């Protein structure tokens, strides 16, 4: 159901899941514990809150350093929400789910419970 309902931008608080498609990029630098931690946190949050409605691209700056400038990456790890616009950035290992959701502008699904 990814592509179908993309035009439905406005949604009520009661809808099950936002129909917006999320394009996310996670910038890491090698396989550091912090990067792995961030990746794990991201996967969990996405599965829980954006199930099926997201795409994550992982960029390892050690391999592609030239990509850092485009998104103004400074801190590692950085999660960039490229879509929807405007772009948002969350830096850190994403250990605080609440802040990640606020940062991504994703409303928590009621009942699902966030910790």
């Amino acid at each position, binding site marked *: 159901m990814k592509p179908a309902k993309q035009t439905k931008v406005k949604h009520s608080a009661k809808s099950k899941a936002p129909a917006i498609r999320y394009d996310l990029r996670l*910038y890491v630098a090698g396989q550091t514990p912090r990067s792995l931690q961030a990746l794990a946190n991201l996967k969990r949050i996405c599965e829980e809150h954006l199930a099926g409605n997201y795409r994550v691209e992982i960029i390892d700056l050690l391999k592609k350093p030239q990509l850092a400038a485009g998104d103004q990456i*400074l801190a590692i*790890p950085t999660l960039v929400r490229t879509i929807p616009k405007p772009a948002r950035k969350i830096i850190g290992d*994403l250990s605080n789910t609440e*802040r990640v959701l606020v940062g991504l502008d994703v409303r928590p699904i009621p009942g699902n419970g966030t910790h």
Partner: protein
Amino acid sequence: MSKKLRPLPKAPTGIDGLDRITLGGLPRGRPTLICGSAGCGKTLFGIEFLVRGALQFNEPGVCITFEESARDLALNVASLGFDLEQLQKSKKLVIDHIYIDKSEIAETGEYDLEGLFIRLNAAIDSIKAKRVLLDTPEALFAGLSDTGVLRSELRRLFGWLKDKGVTAVITGERGEGTLTRHGLEEYVSDCVILLDHRVQNDAVTRRLRVLKYRGSTHGTSEYPFLIDEHGISVLPVTSLGLTHPASTARISSGIPDLDAMLEGHGYFRGSSVLVTGSAGTGKTSMGAHFVDAACGRGEKAILFSFEESPEQVIRNMRSIGMDLERWVKKGLLHIESARPTAFGLEMHLVRMHHLLKTHKPDVVVIDPISSLLPGGSEHDVQALVLRIVDFLKHSGATGFFTALNAEDDLQSTALSISSLVDAWILLRNIEVNGERNRLLYVLKSRGMAHSNQIREFLLTHRGVRLREVYLGPGGVLTGSARVAREADERRAEIQRQQEIQDRERAITASLRAVEAKIAALQAEKVAHENELTSALGADHAQKAVALADIEALRKSRGMTIESTGRTQRPNGREGKS
């Protein structure tokens, strides 16, 4: 194999003067902190360091800007002649603009600034950069809330730069009571340069000081610096060691009478001459003479005028019979006029420096140096003169400075700079008999037996003339008094001549009288002789008559003449022979 200890390697900045202060440049392979308040030229300093590195020393550079965009930066320094875009195209420079917008960033959990390192590393590797500018990493403190992380990452960054072997310049804005707002000086401790600009008497003076330079000696004073179309210029005292050569050649002052007072040859070439005097004593005219004489010999000259425009100088000098315009037209003379208040002192100094470098004059006149005084303290002016004197001495040019001082305090303003100069000529007005006259004397002239005489200084339509003064009972006589005295002397001379003639006449007359007397006596003598002769003649005649009578008597008595002769002479003996 040399056993000499290797000094700290240095990376020349190419910035005029700074390399002299730091004895070679910034510490190579180490970070240097440039701090100062807003608008003091930190960014420009860094950019110039990169640009000159790329152009003059073949050391490509990376500029990480945290505040301005690459485009803005390029525009801002274009006015100084730095073409950043061209440098980027030719792979001599990489500019990366790093910015953080706090509003679009959320922080959650731990992070580091590896992204910054990666970007910096990529930029350095892309052009094999040797120099890095970070302008200013303090901006990160506004974008990231976890200052603990930031601080440790900055510490890591500076260590990393050292490991990378690049010579880095990090700028930092001056904070309250600290060198930088966020204490960057804690991390960058190899070399710290402080920039400063102050408003002094309405003119801004920029100053630079090397606060710290680990492992190297450096000039510790505050040095004025300037930002103009050539970039940054720092103005150190050019010779700390007083090692300039001393010429024995002489150079005419342009005034033959003054040359005569200076052993007949004038000043030493390459020396500095100070002329002080109160208003209207003819200081400028003396300077003009000096310039005129130099140009007449085919030498180059610069006349810095702080009071008159070039045309005014030319017009005024025409009134004493000097045509400076022809030298200007020939390109031998450059007259540079500027109001002393137009810029701060150091700006004047730099302008002079530039002109001296481009024009390469043999003779430099600064008229008057005292008008710079309001632009700074006496100390500043003294430092300025010292710098000029040093610079001129090193370039072998002869400096001629005039200075105005108060009528009643002839040596006060001059005192502070008089010890710096080699010759000091004093002009003064004296007011007697209802007129003002000018006097000149040579107060000092190092290395020559100069005249100790006071001369009267005349401005004629054929230039400056010096006349000997008369010493009268009331002091020296000048002007009309001197003219009157000259007339007196002339009168006295005529009178003397007359008296001599009179005496001559009198003596001649008495001589003649004596001669006349002699003639009269001669005549008398002749008369007496004549008388005597005639008397003898008469006696003889009488005698003859008497003899004849006796003869006749004897004849008549029958006696001889002899016996009668015996009776005539009572001794009788002679009568026998």
